[in-house]
């Protein structure tokens, strides 16, 4: 079963760690990613550059605008996709994501989305 993990936060949350804490956090995140890679569960992993544009339908054509991220309360900073044995395992991975623990209630978090399968069972 594949799951998309969306990591939410904002500048304040991500910048709140003191430099020493930040270095420790980065190290933990690297170790976390390496663990998933080694177990053969990591399918994809990317960070997002906070320079998104949104394309929405205007009066008669799609309109491109900046943001609206930087003002938003929380936005997606990175994502990864895992392929795991069970729903429980997906939640266990999300709970163990280092930044979730480091947030200490300052905000930020991770959303766990099951990915649709391409095929289908008998009906």
């Amino acid at each position: 079963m594949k799951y998309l993990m969306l990591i939410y936060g904002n500048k304040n949350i991500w910048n709140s760690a003191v430099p020493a804490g930040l270095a420790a956090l980065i190290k933990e995140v690297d170790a976390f990613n390496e663990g998933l890679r080694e177990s053969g569960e990591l399918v994809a992993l990317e960070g997002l550059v906070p320079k998104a544009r949104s394309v929405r339908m205007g009066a008669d054509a799609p309109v491109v605008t900046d943001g609206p991220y930087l003002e938003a309360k929380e936005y997606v900073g990175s994502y990864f996709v895992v392929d795991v044995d069970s729903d429980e395992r997906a939640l266990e991975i999300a709970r163990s994501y280092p930044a979730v623990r480091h947030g200490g209630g300052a905000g930020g978090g991770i959303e766990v989305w099951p990915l649709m399968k391409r095929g289908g069972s008998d009906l």
Partner: protein
Amino acid sequence: MTLDQSVEGLLRALAPQVLGMLVRRYGDFAGCEDAVQEALIVAVDAWPRAGVPEYPLGWLGTVATRRYVDQVRADTARERRERAVVDALPRDALVTAPVDVEPGQDDLLELLFLCCHPALTAPSQMALTLRAVGGLSTSEIAAAFLVPEKTMGQRVSRAKQRLREVGARFELPSGPERGPRVRVVLHVLYLVFNEGYSASAGPALHRADLTGEAVRLARRLHERLPESGEAAGLLALMLLTEARGPARMGPGGELIPLAEQDRSRWDRTAITEGTDLLTRAMATLPLGPYQVQASIAALHDEAASVEDTDWPQILALYDILERLAANPVVSLNRAVALAMVHGPQAGLDVLHELERGVLAGNHRLLAVRAHLLEQAGERASAATAFQEAARLAGSVPEQRFLLRRAARCAAG
């Protein structure tokens, strides 16, 4: 059959034999498995061009042995062990090919027990089985499960590392341990089959033929365990399910439910084989859940239409299945059979009970409820239930199917 296909078939059949041969000689499953994989890759390249060697098993054994020894030699830290390995070999072991002349012991069962070791997760069990026993390459397995090759490679090497950690042995489990271990092997083959079968209804994707591979392995398992009623039952279940494959998908890749399938497109040869196998197994061997599921599939396969189906018999089989292996999905299927025998309201009453259990909010349960509401003539409620089921569906073809049903009900 083209040369490439016959070479591929031959290699798949030989892969577990070569691996068994090497593991027996060196005892190092992880290293031997890598060496066999490399030998298979060499053969895939060489045989279609130069022709299949006179003694294919011996050829593969020789190449795999060389690879294994090279691997050990390359690791300088293991120099001492390398000498021990080479010294332990008979002088001619690296060049002669006696195995085809004197077929060795078939190590299929030992390999299956090792690859389906209970210490591994299901995805790892499937990957390792397909590689070590099925002879598929890492990239083929990765493509079949839609993950990057690197991810699959990691999964295989982690699984082998885990086997080492738990001290898994290349041998047949004995006594009381054996039954549960056979059940794990059967379950892994069942999962491989399902993975392939449910994917075959998706948009045209390049996927290795997992259903064919599962059937092939189940067939070999049944040959080696003729006394296992469940090995026979699983093979029968696969044959009887796969038989409907050609009719379960429309021209646009959409799923066609059992009730609307063109039954003349079902594979009669597979149905006959599956039914015969099942009849023999049920007459002589202990009963188990795979046999019961196969019996249900056989009753569907033998019916000329939905109306013609022996629903009372199917309901009785679901009652047995609930006693043998209770699970919510079985209860859900039983509700459908119950509705076919005693009317939609009887089915809806059972669903009402199930909604309080672990299936609460499950899209299958919602889809069955929608279907029964439609049968009961409550089209507006059925449309809402189909929409809700579509929203929660786990796959694109199922979602599209449910949305079509919702639209049909809404149109009244």
